């Protein structure tokens, strides 16, 4: 059943499930038939040592979690991986990428969103003026309809032009 919603085979889903369970063995029951309402708190994900340096950990968790609070259910967990799998269509990926950038959830990437992104990517090494210059340039480059912010269409348009977006934005199972 879950299989229909994702791009995975049963085996892969099982493997992901075990991984999910490994994150919090005390919370997640092994038996998932009756769909217990289990969520993984964001703190668990944030505390993973591998993720310590990753600037986007919180944002990813937020985007993919159901209520935008970073707490993940198994379905969210699968979704996240599904979107990034090889099989997912490009538009879907672009949509989620867009959502990750859209920090204030207003369905537009505006300057403040971009500034956040740039700051995360550069570990705040740029001065505010530089950041704002960069962001202006970025918007200027991609803004087709000239409204000073990037809509999903703008974003998709730009992504499609970028040649190897498809080849980079996925995880190999």
């Amino acid at each position, binding site marked *: 059943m879950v299989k229909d919603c994702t791009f995975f085979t049963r085996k892969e889903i099982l493997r992901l499930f075990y991984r999910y369970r490994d994150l919090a063995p005390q919370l997640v029951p092994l038996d998932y038939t009756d769909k217990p309402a289990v969520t993984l708190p964001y703190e668990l994900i944030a505390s993973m040592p591998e*993720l310590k340096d990753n600037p986007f950990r919180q944002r990813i968790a937020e985007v993919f979690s159901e209520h935008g609070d970073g707490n993940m259910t198994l379905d969210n*967990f699968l979704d996240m991986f599904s979107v990034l799998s090889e099989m997912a269509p490009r538009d879907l990926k672009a949509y989620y990428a867009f959502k990750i950038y859209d920090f204030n959830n207003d369905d537009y990437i505006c300057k403040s969103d971009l500034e956040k992104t740039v700051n995360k*990517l550069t570990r*705040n090494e740029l001065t505010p003026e530089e950041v704002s210059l960069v962001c202006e340039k970025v918007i200027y480059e991609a803004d087709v309809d000239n409204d000073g912010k990037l809509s999903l269409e703008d974003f998709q348009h730009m992504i499609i032009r970028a040649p190897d977006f498809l080849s*980079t934005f996925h995880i190999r199972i």
Partner: protein
Amino acid sequence: MPQPLANVCSTFVPEQTDGKRCWHQGCQEGVLQLVSPQAGGSAGHSASRVFHLSRKVTSIVPESCLLILLGLVLGGIVLAVAKKAEYQLEPNMFFLFLLPPIVLDSGYFMPSRLFFDNIGAILTYAVVGTLWNSFATGTALWGLHRAGLMDPGVEAGLMDFLLFGSLISAVDPVAVLAVFEEVHVNETLFIIVFGESLLNDAVTVVLYKVFNSFVELGPAHIHATDYVKGVASFFLVSLGGTAVGLLFAFLLALITRFTKRVRIIEPLFVFLLAYVAYLAAEMVSLSSILAVTFCGICCKKYVEANISQKSRTTVKYTMKTLASSSETIIFMFLGISAVDTSKWAWDTALVLGTLFFILLFRAVGVVLQTHVLNRFRLIPLDRIDQVVMSYGGLRGAVAFALVILLDREKVKAKDYFVATTIVVVFFTVIVQGLTIKPLVTWLKVKRSDHHKPTLNEELHEHAFDHILAAVEDIVGHHGYHYWRDKWEQFDKKYLSQLLMRKSAYRLRDEIWDVYYKLNIRDAISFADQGGHVLSAAKLALPSMPSRTSMSESSVTNLLRESGSGACLDLQVIDTVRSRRDKEDAAMHHVLRGSLYKPRRRYKASYSRHFISPDKQERQDKEIFRQNMKRRLETFKSTKHNVCSSKSKARLKEKGRKKKNISLTKETPNGKTQRNIPWQEAAPVLVMVSSEEEESDSSETEREDDEGIVFIARATDEVLQGKTTPGSLDVCPSPCIIPPSPTLAEKELPWKGDQADLAVYVSSETTKIVPVDMQKAWNQSISSLESIASPPGTESGPQHRRFVCPVLEEGRPQSASHVTPEQSSCFQFPSHISRSGRSQSDSSPDGPEQQELQPLMATEEQGRMPPTVEPRRLMFHRASHL
């Protein structure tokens, strides 16, 4: 690219005759002398100039073509003089002296990570492909022979043809790689061709030896079991050789761990142990080539971490030189034997058949293998890639060397084979080598993105990488990279601890230590040469390969710019571009300079004749450049604050001019320049700075030489620095090197470590500039000074006046810090400094003071430990005044 080649070529031209004589006597020293890089150094210069002029030629004609032509000319000369070809390639010489450097070079410079990532495809192409090529070619030729199409003089059985097939299938894509690098084909294609080129020599030689032993046994004595044995021995020999290589790599890494006190022989160990690995494998008749290759691949990481910077450079260049030398020698033999027709036995059917079959089977092999591989590949190799791969099957030096080594007694058709091989090598290298570049262009092979990516792409690519990394981590699924991660853990836990020095191991943990080291080194060189060399070095950065020749105007432009210290960024100073372009470039630079890379990005390039700085280094440099620029800006702006009123007026003028184009607030001093590089590139500013620069250009240029000397010695001193604590207190260097906390640094997330780092930096820098460097130091300062501010006779006293308050302030503080013992060691060599100062006849005492003051100011906001020394220095200088 042509320059190293030219050097190599010329190294061997003048040595040719006597070197050859030595070989003829089987004299080992002859080879060593010939191979030694210093031998033809002076001749190299003149020749390199010639090659420099013919840059155009080398951009069209691949290196191997030129080498062969050179060989032909030489062969003609030799033949004309001696009437017969005296020189022959001998098996011992080839296998003992010429082959190991080539193979070691390949192994050592293999980007191991990329290699192991693509190891499946590479192994397939190298092993299966080579096997297929040799068997198919051999059998087909044998069929041709059986069909009676060949001259009856070709006495050869199946075994002979298989032997021939094995040696002719040694694909040598060096020429292809050169072309690939030039046109920047996509990375997948590049690494596959590259990896194949590395491994198939080994496979070919192993195969060749197996067949050779078969032929020597004679077909009559070969039983069915021998074939099985042959196959078994193929694997045994290969795997055994690999094992020997790994063993010696381990030994080598372990040894270099303990060579701290004998730095001078570190490179020697590298070469010696690799060579011993070769000999050891040879002795137990395992594949010596694989042994050396894997020794090179595996030891590199640890060796590089253990040995000193100097040794690293030595190893790098010596290895490249040796490999190029060997190849050149082989090509020369090729040319000589090509001219000497007495060794030829021409058979049209054989030659044409061979040419046809190698092309055909190469293509078939590539297509079949790719078909299989594409099932497992993430990004399939498309048809165009396959065409290029098939067409790129050039035959090179190794094939020729192997055929010339055949035993005429055992292989009756040797002369035919030699002639055929020569033709094949000529055809593939010259015809295919010349046409592959147009072909690549014509087929529109997927290039690696060389156009400057838009800011969006740049940004998103980074973001995606991070996102992917994050998701992978959350899910705990490392898929493709699982084994690599496992290995890395093992490596980190055990191997590195065992094989690396403690210091090296620690350094690896903190990338920022490396960053600081780079920073320090570059800062010294920068300060020393007034920025000239630093920016000149940027010319060679492969990040802008398009800029092969700079127009005269832009060079002077650049000199002025960098001379004024305002702009270290070359990309910004492009010759004629619209303002928007400049903004774009500047923004890119700002962004790229400070984007930090997620863990999954790497890229490789390889050329036998060209060493490119590796990615990490480049990245560090970028970041460094960014910071350095800022630092200089702050430095300059603070300095201008205390400048004479005259220069202030000028600055105001400058500021006014700038306002026209500036976006930021109007502060009428250097501060407007900060961090907005495109402004500095604006023509208005160039004019202003040139005004000041022109008068000093001669002086700064003259000092360039000394600067270079200074650096060389400085690095030398690092090695011994620890044993000479006396020098610690004398040098004034820390005043410039401890990085004044720029905005960026203050905000760094790892600020917690700052205290440690600061200590580290200060002790390191004090080591770098010992007492006898004073002169150079002063000169550098004066040069910097004279560049930065207009020289005026009245500036000296004023400087002194301005500096005084700082001194007063510094005195009581330093008193509390400096222990009596420390201050007693301190001695300021005033006479040296004075002599150095006389170079800049403008300000008698100003330079140092002025230099110190602004940095002091920034220093004080910063960290405690390093401030001790500058203050002390100030103190003592003051007493001198």
